[in-house]
Each structure stands twice: as C-alpha cells, then as structure tokens.
C-alpha cells in the first residue's frame, strides 16, 4: 500500500502547517525582524556617516543580517518538529520524508524572504541605497538567495535538532556550506543597487540558480536518512 496523497500535496500540507503555527504564535518573524534590524543598525553605526561607504557595502550587510537571522529561524523550524517527536509522528503517519523536506524548505524560505522584504525599507533608511533600478531582479535575487540558505539549512537544522549543543552546531555546519551562495547573492544584490556596466548580473543569477539546484538536490536525496532513526 502506498500513501494516498501525492508528494506535492503532502509537501503543501507541511508548508501550510508551518505557516499555520507561525500565524498562531507570530513569534518567529517578530524575533527575526528585531534581530536583523538591530544587526543592520549596528553595522551602519560601525561604518559611520560616510554615505558613499554605506551604499557601497549595503548589499553585504543585508545578507549578513539575513544569514544571522536564518540561524534563529532554521533552529526554531525544527524545534517545533522535535517537541513531542512531531517529526517522527509525521514519518509514521506516513508522510514521505522528501515531502517533509520540500515543505520545510519552502516554509523556511518563505519566512526568510518575508524578512528580506521587511529589511529592504530599513536598508534604504540606514544605507541610502536605490532599490528602484531593477526591483524585479532584486526580488528574484532575494528569493533565490533565501531559498539557497533554506535548503542546506533545513538539512542541518534537522541534523542538529536533537544534538546537545544544537545552537552551536547549526551555524558550524551551515556557514561553510553557504559561503559560495552568499558570495553570489551579495554580488548579485550589489548589481541591483548599483549600475552594472559590464552586465554581470545575469551570470550571478545563473550561479545562484545552480547553487539552489545543487543544494535542493542533495537535500532531497539525504533528508530521508536524517528524518528516520536507524
């Protein structure tokens, strides 16, 4: 006998469940906004009042804010799954572990993407950047970047959820893997804030898509091993 619902339907139910929990508590997004807002504010103070310098580095600070916030967000995402062993409950229901992976990645990505949208006006206020040049491409970069953080982030937060030092373990595992993606995301974001005379944005976008596909494929393959006990 096979599960009665398709992989995508199950993934959609997992995603909806995560949104439902977030909507009931609204704890995660609120904490993320304050945390990353404070991070951006501190960076702008550290840089001083030089507007040219602030503008020149805004893309990097935006992604650092998102990266730090992602650790909080991803950790919380699997805290709710480890409480009462809810993840085991899902697997035994049965829900295909790959559907759980897809649902959790989209849930985490949507949370970080929503956060990035909230951070954009803060970035304008603190760093005086121009978001009106290619706003649709900026949104695409943010979407691809947050998706890229969420795919390995979901895998590693599932691994570290039951570890003793999970708060330390998650960034230790995650940050090295994310370095190439963050370089691509920050570079692409820079080219949406500033002129792009050599037309490099397209190449960075292709690189981001490639990283996303690699992270998603690896996560899709390994997540069933992580979701189930030996």
């Amino acid at each position: 006998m096979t599960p009665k619902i398709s992989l995508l339907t199950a993934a959609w139910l997992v995603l909806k469940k995560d949104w439902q929990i977030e909507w009931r508590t609204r704890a995660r997004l609120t904490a993320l906004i304050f945390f990353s807002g404070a991070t951006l504010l501190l960076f702008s103070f550290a840089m001083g009042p030089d507007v040219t310098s602030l503008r020149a580095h805004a893309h990097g600070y935006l992604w650092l804010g998102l990266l730090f916030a992602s650790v909080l967000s991803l950790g919380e995402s699997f805290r709710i799954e480890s409480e009462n062993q809810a993840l085991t409950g899902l697997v035994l229901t049965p829900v295909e572990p790959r559907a759980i992976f897809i649902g959790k990645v989209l849930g985490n990505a949507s949370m970080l993407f929503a956060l990035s949208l909230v951070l954009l006006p803060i970035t304008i206020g603190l760093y005086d950047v121009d978001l009106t040049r290619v706003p649709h491409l900026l949104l695409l970069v943010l979407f691809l970047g947050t998706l890229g953080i969420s795919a390995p982030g979901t895998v590693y937060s599932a691994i570290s959820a039951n570890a003793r030092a999970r708060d330390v373990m998650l960034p230790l595992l995650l940050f090295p893997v994310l370095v190439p993606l963050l370089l691509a995301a920050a570079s692409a974001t820079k080219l949406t804030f500033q002129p792009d005379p050599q037309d490099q944005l397209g190449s960075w976008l292709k690189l981001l898509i490639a990283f996303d596909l690699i992270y998603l494929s690896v996560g899709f393959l390994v997540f069933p091993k992580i979701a189930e006990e030996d």
Partner: protein
Amino acid sequence: MSALAVEAIDISKRFGARWAISRLSFSLAQGRSLLLTGHNGSGKTTLLRIISTAAFPTAGTLKVLGFDSKKERDSLRPSVALVSHASFHYEDLTAAQNLLLSAKFLGVKDPASSVKELLERMGLSSRADSAVRQFSAGMRKRLAIARLLMKAPKVALLDEPFGELDPAGSLQMEQLIRDLQAQGTSVVLATHLIEQGLSLTQERLHLEGGRKVSPT
C-alpha cells in the same frame, strides 16, 4: 498476506554500547493481542518503536503483517499506529488542527466530520479549538488515541495507555481496546498494570534487559 501480525526473528537493537533488545524472537497471530511487561528500561518502549517502524533492529528480522519492517516500511506504515510517551502533536496547533492535519495526510474522505466525530468520542469536543500546549497529560493521551483511531490500524501499539488517565478515562481506554480487538486489530500493549493488561490480551511477553524471560 501472512497470518502473523508480528514476527520477530532474533532481533537486537543497540544504542551506542548498550543492547536495548537482545536476540528476541516471538510471534503474534493476526487478531490476537499481546501484553508486554517488564521493569523500566527492559526494552518495552524500544520494541514498540521497532514494531511501529520509528526505529529499526540493529540485527535480526522483524516482519509486521508480512512486511519487512525496514525494507517494506512504506507499505507497512499505513497499517500500524503507535501511541507513545511522546504524543507526536504540534503544541501550537489546536486539537482539531492536529487531527485535521493527520486526516489530510491519511487521505481521509470528509476529514472535518471525521475530526469532529473523533473529538466527540474522546470527550474533547469542548476543547477542539484549544492549543495542545494548554492540554493536561490525560487530554494529550486522549488526543493521541483519537489520532490512532483515525488511522484504523491493523496493528495498534499502545505504550502505557492507562498512564495519566483518570478512572473514567481508564475505563474508556479499556473499552476502546476491546472495540479495536472486535474489529480484528492486533493490540500490543505495554503497561505496568499487569492485571488490567492480562484482562485485555491473550498473550504475554516479559522482558528483562531486552531479553525474553518467563514472568515471575
């Protein structure tokens, strides 16, 4: 399809250096029920988790309803349900939302009315819209049973089902177990309440240090 609900052939389960189950063999015919007894740490919960496919044997073969519990877990899981110390519920969802989620995953037709009916049966209708976080241990147990009933399993695994229940709840649990048995479900029951357990089951497996021994 095998006539056996559970067939354990020389199964062992190791956690680190400790063997929680050691070279255990037993079988249970379909429709029959088994009482698992033993002191704390004797391996009862581990055995129930292995039968439910929440964990897998380190060595040996376990067949449930004729399916290999590891290799054919996807085929087996729809037919087995576990009520454990962990309730498997989301604390920030309501009782109704938790059950509705399970119903949708299980592909239940008309999930909303199934949820309503089960909450009523378990005496939780008045708290349907309360978050599970606000529930007492007994109410959580009732909700976990509602989830098991939603699945209508062929093998029901109950770990200390009478724990945290008041006398009325305990009687209701006994009746539910009898109802499951009347429908042909094999029940594997782990409890320290041996007399109550014996009155509900036909067979007994006593564990000590993960090994099968004769009850004293």
